[in-house]
């Protein structure tokens, strides 16, 4: 029966290429070719890289690099699946639309569970399969490893991705017994995200600690370099991660150390199998009942009802919907409320922001004294202070604003039938994403201010540029999102409400905009330096030019997208 379900799933996949709407078919075919192209490119370049390492470096050093590279590749997969996998697993196991049918036909619940587990495993890992497999294959080819390497490689890969998936499934099954799966999905995604971030930050901190302990590379001898790399990257804590057992399996096979290979292979496969077994055993007791309970509306306690009644009867004027947040501005308030209650979306927006901020912070704070000495027409640290935060919040903003219209989702009909000018709807959406990114930008800029210490005048300029940049990027993102919205993603766990083409266009326009925006500012600063203008002249000129750029963008893009918004049909 499991075979039949899987066959049916593959058939659905195949029909997506042959029988679906022409637009979707083309999208799938392009996506598939893109996947194959990426796979081939990674295979080619990683083979070249490994050949280069072998030919140019000392064997011992090359082995050290391979060992550490494998550890980190598997660690990234492991962390990432912990980060995203819990929510995906929960969605597939409890919220997919075919469950009602599957659980009502005469198939064992265990079979349905295994089928869904496989679906979760594939969803969690197919992107990594495209990205990691070519690296592992080229490693095997360039190292001339025995044929046994390839099946081991596949088993290890499946084991490494199955462990976080199983952990996600187990956590999910337990959580669904307590809370609604929709809420559980968000809460667990948030916890998973925080956990992933914590692991990432720990590796960063420990790497820095190791760096301080590493020997100075004065002699540049092979032994020194090996010791340095090992001190920086090869951390004792890594050996406790299942991902490292996986990488060790392949590494020891590569070295011909079959005893260690066997031990690690048994360890990773046994843990993986044990967790899958645990999932199956526990699922028999709680999966169906959990799904069944979660399909019902959570019953509320009497005390909660009484409390709500009191709240409803209390006429708290000004609590909601008044003053600044009345009328059309209620849109912005609505969007903030929805965003703050959607943990998954919050994570999608803020996690990259934190990661980029810390990444830049660590990268530049290490050698800030040195880079502070580097002078173009301005000290490098001032240029970095002005434009690094813009790059980070630009990425954040393009994510928020491009989803501004699409994220209305299946509720978009409400806006369509509301007596509001499409231009006003767009304006409120632009204001929403601008406010959000300005808020984030201020935090980032404050952190960077204490790192780079550029002086008060540059702080003021930076903040004004931040406002203008957020506004401009919001206009671009919202406009692109209006042209390419996806109101009903194929997977409801997908929080990206813009089509693939729209996403690519948005990214390109973002890069173009930041180039022009930064080009104007840097150009004027350069000119000011050349002509000996004071800040009192150059700063207002920069602000005025950026403002003109934004006004041009507003008047062209918003008018175009107003037309588009007006013409959008609601076919759902």
């Amino acid at each position, binding site marked *: 029966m499991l075979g039949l379900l899987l066959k049916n799933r593959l058939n659905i996949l195949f029909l997506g290429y042959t029988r679906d709407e022409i637009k979707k078919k083309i999208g799938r075919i392009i996506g598939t070719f893109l996947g194959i192209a990426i796979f081939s490119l990674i295979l080619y370049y990683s083979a070249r890289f490994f050949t280069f390492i072998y030919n140019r470096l000392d064997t011992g050093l090359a082995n050290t690099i391979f060992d550490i590279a494998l550890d980190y590749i598997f660690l990234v997969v492991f962390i990432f699946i912990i980060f995203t996998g819990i929510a995906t697993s929960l969605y597939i196991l409890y919220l997919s639309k075919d469950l009602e049918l599957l659980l009502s036909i005469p198939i064992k619940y265990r079979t349905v569970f295994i089928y869904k587990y496989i679906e979760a495993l594939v969803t969690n890992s197919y992107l990594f399969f495209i990205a990691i497999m070519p690296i592992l294959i080229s490693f095997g080819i360039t190292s001339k490893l025995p044929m046994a390497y390839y099946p081991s490689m596949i088993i290890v890969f499946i084991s490494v991705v199955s462990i976080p998936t199983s952990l996600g499934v187990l956590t999910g099954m337990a959580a669904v017994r307590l809370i609604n799966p929709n809420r559980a999905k968000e809460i667990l995604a948030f916890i998973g995200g925080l956990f992933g971030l914590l692991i990432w930050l720990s590796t960063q901190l420990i790497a820095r600690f190791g760096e301080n302990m590493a020997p100075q590379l004065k002699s540049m001898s092979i032994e020194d370099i090996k010791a340095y790399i090992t001190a920086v990257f090869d951390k004792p804590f890594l050996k406790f991660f299942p991902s490292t057992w996986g990488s060790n399996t392949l590494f020891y096979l590569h070295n011909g150390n079959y005893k260690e290979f066997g031990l690690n292979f048994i360890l990773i496969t046994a843990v993986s199998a044990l967790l899958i077994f645990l999932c199956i055993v526990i699922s028999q007791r709680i999966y169906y009942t959990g799904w069944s309970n979660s399909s019902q*509306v959570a019953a509320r306690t009497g005390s909660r009802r009484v409390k709500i009644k009191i709240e*409803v009867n209390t006429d708290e004027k000004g609590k909601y919907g008044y003053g600044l947040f009345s*009328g059309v501005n209620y849109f912005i308030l609505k969007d903030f409320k929805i965003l703050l209650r959607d943990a998954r979306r919050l994570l999608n927006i803020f996690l990259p922001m934190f990661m980029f901020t810390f990444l830049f912070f660590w990268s530049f704070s290490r050698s800030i004294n040195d880079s502070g000495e580097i002078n173009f027409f301005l000290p490098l640290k001032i240029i970095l202070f002005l434009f690094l935060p813009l790059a980070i919040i630009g990425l954040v903003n393009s994510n928020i604003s491009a989803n501004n219209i699409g994220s209305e989702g299946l509720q978009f009909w409400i806006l369509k039938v509301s*007596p509001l000018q499409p231009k006003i709807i767009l304006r409120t959406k632009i204001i929403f994403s601008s406010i959000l990114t300005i808020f984030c930008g201020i935090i980032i800029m404050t952190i960077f201010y204490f790192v780079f210490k550029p002086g008060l005048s540059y702080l003021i300029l930076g903040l004004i540029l931040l406002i203008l940049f957020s506004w401009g990027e919001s206009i671009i993102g919202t406009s692109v999102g209006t042209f390419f919205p996806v109101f009903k993603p194929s997977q409801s766990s997908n929080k990206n409400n813009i089509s693939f083409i729209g996403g690519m266009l948005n990214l390109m326009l973002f890069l173009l905009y930041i180039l022009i925006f930064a080009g104007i500012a840097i150009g004027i600063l350069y000119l000011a330096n050349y002509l000996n203008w004071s800040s009192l002249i150059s700063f207002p000129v920069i602000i005025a030019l950026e403002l003109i750029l934004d006004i041009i963008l507003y008047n062209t893009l918003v008018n175009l997208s107003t037309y588009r918004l007006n013409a959008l049909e609601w076919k759902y």
Partner: protein
Amino acid sequence: MSDNSIAIETFSLTKKYGSLAAVNNLNLKIKSGEIFGFLGPNGAGKTTTIKLMTGLLKPTAGTVKITGNDIQEDPLGAKKNFGLIPEEPLIYEKLTGIEFLRFMGNIFTVDRKEIEEKIKELLKVFDLTGRGDELIQSYSHGMKQKMAIAGALIHSPKVLFFDEPTVGLDPRSARVIKDIMKFRARSGVCIFMSTHILEIAERICDRVGIINKGELIAVGNMDELRKVSKEKEGNLEEIFLQLTGEEEDIDIIKSLT
């Protein structure tokens, strides 16, 4: 009948998808205070008609006027005057019931004080008092449906579009909806309702339109429909089956059983 009494008017309304006409040359006049039932088999074009009337879809040809405002030429004027209750209660699940109603009141520029009064009134009518501060995502399908209806009623529209209004509702709520329709119609609101439940249409609609394969095949009150069909004494179900040619299916069904 003066022009002011016409709440909904369509002129050769047509929507085509390629060569398929989902709605073809639809001409209708529905008065204020009238409850109009729009019937048809699955895929006949009922929901498409409602979407065309409310501006969710653009017609391939023809126009729609709501309270005299062309939905394409003057969309805001038209939209101010109607409320839509779609078949599926697709409303903001991350808002609480009260927040959703406030949002709807605000976008229809209802007076603040009136919004609060209406919220209390609507929650009471739909038996949702005490649940208004909970997120809509925790509601059952029926509760969401009731919340969608409350959202459409908050600005006291002159025209109400109901797409399958009683689907997913318990008998009490279904009764409340029917009473609301009757009550609103008495106060001059035009009700346009698509439904599969012929009993409801027969009992509460002043006039009924039957659409099949995008074509309006009959329109009128029960007596007028009986004249059009062969069923001189029949009920709406018999008239509907006769007009939509589905009587032949009964023989097939009988042979299957």
